[in-house]
């Protein structure tokens, strides 16, 4: 009876160990799949977002030149949404810079005093140029990495 108990306990512990190992393997596989998926999305989405940002920036520039406040607000909001959609694929200093730009755009949208509004819009546009350049660099880096991997 005692030896049966011992073997039973050993079997339980072994089963538990197998389950733990299985769980670890599953987590690692899922983690890897997630990373692959993220890298794939990054490579597929960022170039199109970069192109869209360039388009919205040109719209914004034109709206500022023609002093069209309504269009400026619309383009600022579009740029902000686009930048926010990039957050998940960015890290460290780059992500911080994108977050600050999104905040600057939001701040400009909320200004009601006319002079201050247009000054902040110019500033926001200048920040957007920086973010766009950063995005361009990141897309190039991804292209090189993908070439190296192939």
């Amino acid at each position: 009876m005692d030896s049966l108990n011992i073997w039973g306990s050993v079997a339980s512990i072994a089963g538990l160990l197998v389950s733990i190992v299985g769980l670890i393997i599953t987590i690692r596989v899922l983690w890897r799949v997630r990373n692959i998926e993220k890298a794939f999305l990054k490579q597929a989405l960022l170039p199109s977002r970069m192109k869209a940002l360039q388009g919205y920036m040109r719209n914004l520039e034109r709206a500022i030149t023609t002093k069209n406040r309504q269009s400026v607000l619309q383009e600022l909001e579009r740029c902000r949404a686009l930048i926010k959609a990039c957050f998940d694929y960015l890290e460290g200093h780059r992500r911080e810079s994108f977050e600050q730009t999104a905040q600057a755009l939001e701040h400009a949208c909320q200004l009601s005093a006319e002079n201050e509004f247009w000054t902040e819009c110019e500033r926001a546009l200048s920040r957007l140029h920086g973010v766009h350049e950063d995005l361009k660099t990141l897309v190039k880096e991804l292209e090189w990495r993908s070439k190296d991997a192939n």
Partner: protein
Amino acid sequence: MPTESEWEQATQRLIDLTESGQLKWEVNAHIKSQRENVEGDVYLANVQGRFIAVYEYKYQYYDEESSSGTSGWEMRNEVAIEFVDAIGVLQYRWPAVPGRWRLLDAIRCLVSGAQAFLKTFLTQPAGKEGVW
């Protein structure tokens, strides 16, 4: 700096003066040749010694969800109201106030003679419209 609301008031004033026939607008081919993508004519008026030009133009606009093709770029129309000098050089562009399209429409109605046409056309007895 003047506020947008002041420019909106000024635009409304131009509309009123145009509709009442107190303001004369002329087609100016010279300014049209100096601007890009102008749709229709450029109209010029002299208001208190200042030349004001009004015209419609096309420009490229980016919209990711654009229905016109896959590039995202499409053409849109806009109205410009400008102070220009005697030879049509841009001096100051008015802010894009909501009344700009109504002003252009009022000018076109006046310059095309649409109002005068309706006046005579609708008062003529039936059968004498001079249709050809």
